């Protein structure tokens, strides 16, 4: 009994150490080694593992971990996760920029000179506000729909994933009220104040990385601890057998809503982090393909397994953002060809998804139990052929 607990605690401590080690290494790499290193190292890192890309990856990790709570833990299919990203992003747009110019509120905020109008709240509070606001939206969206069976639920979430971005796209004139500045987007977002001593400008990616990594670590902790507790067991039980779970005293509605709220919360965090990463918020990002991309990260990484999901997020966002492009540039450069690589990206990306599902559908780093179920009928299938 206690042995079991001890192992759990030890592995928890181990991940904390590992995560910190990787984060510190990356910070040192970006902060000292690359700027002071030889130019080939600089070019190599800039080309293949640029700091901007790493920061974007963290956004995707946060999103994927959130979706993992909904899909991986509780087994609820969500095809509209991008809605929470959008809501979180716009909370940052509202509370960290000069956009709402009728107000002039500053709560530990950090407006750029000349942009003092609007609402300026400190980054950390905005994180909480966005997370909380998204969690409320998660409950609003979830409450009427969570009674539905999985496919229908998926469709309803898809519907919300389409409606909410459209509200933001059309939102520059809703009965005369400018909610979102429409497709023009909201820029700039206030710089983050780095633990009180430095405003983070566009080239302080390494410091931003530290902040994002802390938030990401927070999400990892949330994922792991909730999974091990009372709520995590209830989620898994619901994923396995809703009916049996309810007859064992698990309140279905409330438990599912909790999964939704936690997922939405992290979507909100990711939205704020992303808004500060690109220094703005643009409605065009929030389309269905992004929801699918995040879902693919969860599934390809290994549903339910925090490490797998992180790896999935890292790999897919790297491929989507920098990998395919850099690969094309390299091939074209090395063989002096002029192949139009971007036009093959659909093919490469699509094939990757298909092949993964064919040959390693439990994901890169599966949860042991998921591997079992993913392959359980393999043998039956062979005899079908």
């Amino acid at each position: 009994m206690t042995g079991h607990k001890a192992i759990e605690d030890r592995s928890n401590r181990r991940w904390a150490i590992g995560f910190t080690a990787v984060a510190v290494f990356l910070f040192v790499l970006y902060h000292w080694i690359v700027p002071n290193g030889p130019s080939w190292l600089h070019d190599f890192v800039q080309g293949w593992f640029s700091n901007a890309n790493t920061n974007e990856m963290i956004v995707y990790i946060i999103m994927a971990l959130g979706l993992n709570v909904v899909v991986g833990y509780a087994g609820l299919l969500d095809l509209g996760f991008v809605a929470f990203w959008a809501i979180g992003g716009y909370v940052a747009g509202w509370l960290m920029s000069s956009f709402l110019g009728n107000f002039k509120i500053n709560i530990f905020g950090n407006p750029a000179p000349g942009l003092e109008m609007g609402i300026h709240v400190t980054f950390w509070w905005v994180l909480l506000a966005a997370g909380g606001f998204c969690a409320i939206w998660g409950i609003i969206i979830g409450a009427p729909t969570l009674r539905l069976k999985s496919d229908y639920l998926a469709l309803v979430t898809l519907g919300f994933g389409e409606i909410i971005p459209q509200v933001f796209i059309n939102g520059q004139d809703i009965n005369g009220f400018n909610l979102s500045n429409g497709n023009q987007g909201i820029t700039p977002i206030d710089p983050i104040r780095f633990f009180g001593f430095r405003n983070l400008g566009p080239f302080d990616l390494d410091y931003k990385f530290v902040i994002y990594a802390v938030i990401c670590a927070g999400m990892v902790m949330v994922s792991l601890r909730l999974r091990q507790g009372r709520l995590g067991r209830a989620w898994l039980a619901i994923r396995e057998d809703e009916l049996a779970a309810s007859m064992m005293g698990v309140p279905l509605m409330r438990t599912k809503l909790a999964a939704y709220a936690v997922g939405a919360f992290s979507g909100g965090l990711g939205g704020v982090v992303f808004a500060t990463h690109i220094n703005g918020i643009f409605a065009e990002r929030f389309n269905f393909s992004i929801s699918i991309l995040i879902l693919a990260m969860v599934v390809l990484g290994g549903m339910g397994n925090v490490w797998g999901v992180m790896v999935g997020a890292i790999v897919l966002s790297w491929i989507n953002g920098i990998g395919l492009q850099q690969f094309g540039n390299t091939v074209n450069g090395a063989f002096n060809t002029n192949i139009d690589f971007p036009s093959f990206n659909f093919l490469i990306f699509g094939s990757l998804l298909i092949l993964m599902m064919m040959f390693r559908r439990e994901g890169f780093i599966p949860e042991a139990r998921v591997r079992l179920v993913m392959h359980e009928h393999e043998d039956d299938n062979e005899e079908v052929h």
Partner: protein
Amino acid sequence: MPADVATPMSTAAPRAPRLDPKDLTYKISGGLILLGLAFWLGVNLFHDPAQFFTVAIDGLKNGALYALIALGYTMVYGIIQLINFAHGDLFMLGTMMSAFIITTVFGQKAPSLAGYGAFAVAMIVSMAFCGGLNIGIERFAYRRLRRAPKLAPLITAVGVSFVLQFVGLHWNGSGQRQWQTVLPNTQFNINGVVIDVKTVIIFAVTIPMLLILTWLVTKTKQGRAMRATAQDQDAARLMGINVDRTIAFTFGIGGALAGAAGLMYQQVVGSTAYNLGYQLGLIAFTSAVLGGIGNLAGAVLGGLLIGLIQGLNDGLSYGLGQQWSQSVVFTILILLMVFRPAGLLGKNVTEKV
């Protein structure tokens, strides 16, 4: 809180003698929404009846197109419960194949006898092409995953969708292309209500398709095999049904429908684009669910309804306007899911304990 019961069994469960407050709220809010809708329609109808019916029929024209795509969606879902995201992209390739046959191969750009001939050839080629492609996709991508948890084939379908978009991108180019139609461009005007002859043609294609499919599913041996497979694959196999072939057959039919829809879209709307399938696939899937997924007539009803709603919202003077059409459609979908989860024509299912 009866809402916590996992299964949607509002009709199957016995009704309590007294209304419980939750049920009552549901009924009242549902009624209010319907009332508001009726009021909105009434005001518009009163305002300008000719326009009302013109835009309604316009909407139904699109709706019939959605219905054609939704039929394929619903068949595939009905048999293996797969949300086939690639279906819309298959339809997209159907539009391109039709354009290729009619305009590039036969060089037909205007209504003429030769044009109708090319149209007929394109119908056959496009249906065969999409049907064959869909069978191939099923064989190579989905079959292995038939017993895997739902998410695996879903992600595969997304992958297939990307690959098909790649094909479309290279076939059609990145932009949208416009085509001349071989269908007549005439319009009837009945008391101010304008009806496009193309609307008539689409219905002349969609309704027979629905009838043929219904006959196929309910009356033929193959149809019985399909229904048996949809119910329980293992039992069907034990009864001597070749499940693989039945599923492949269903995919073939679904693909052929996508091909037919592609031809109709290309000829009626007159454009092709590589990313067409995404949008229309989404709407078609919504139609299928609206009507009750797995139900053929439901898919047609759902498609027509969505087209009608869009047309009314776009075209009525007191509407939200075109830019909100998508939101209106999905809002209605969500409301329906809340009030009648099984869709308009679908049956509620209870879980066995």
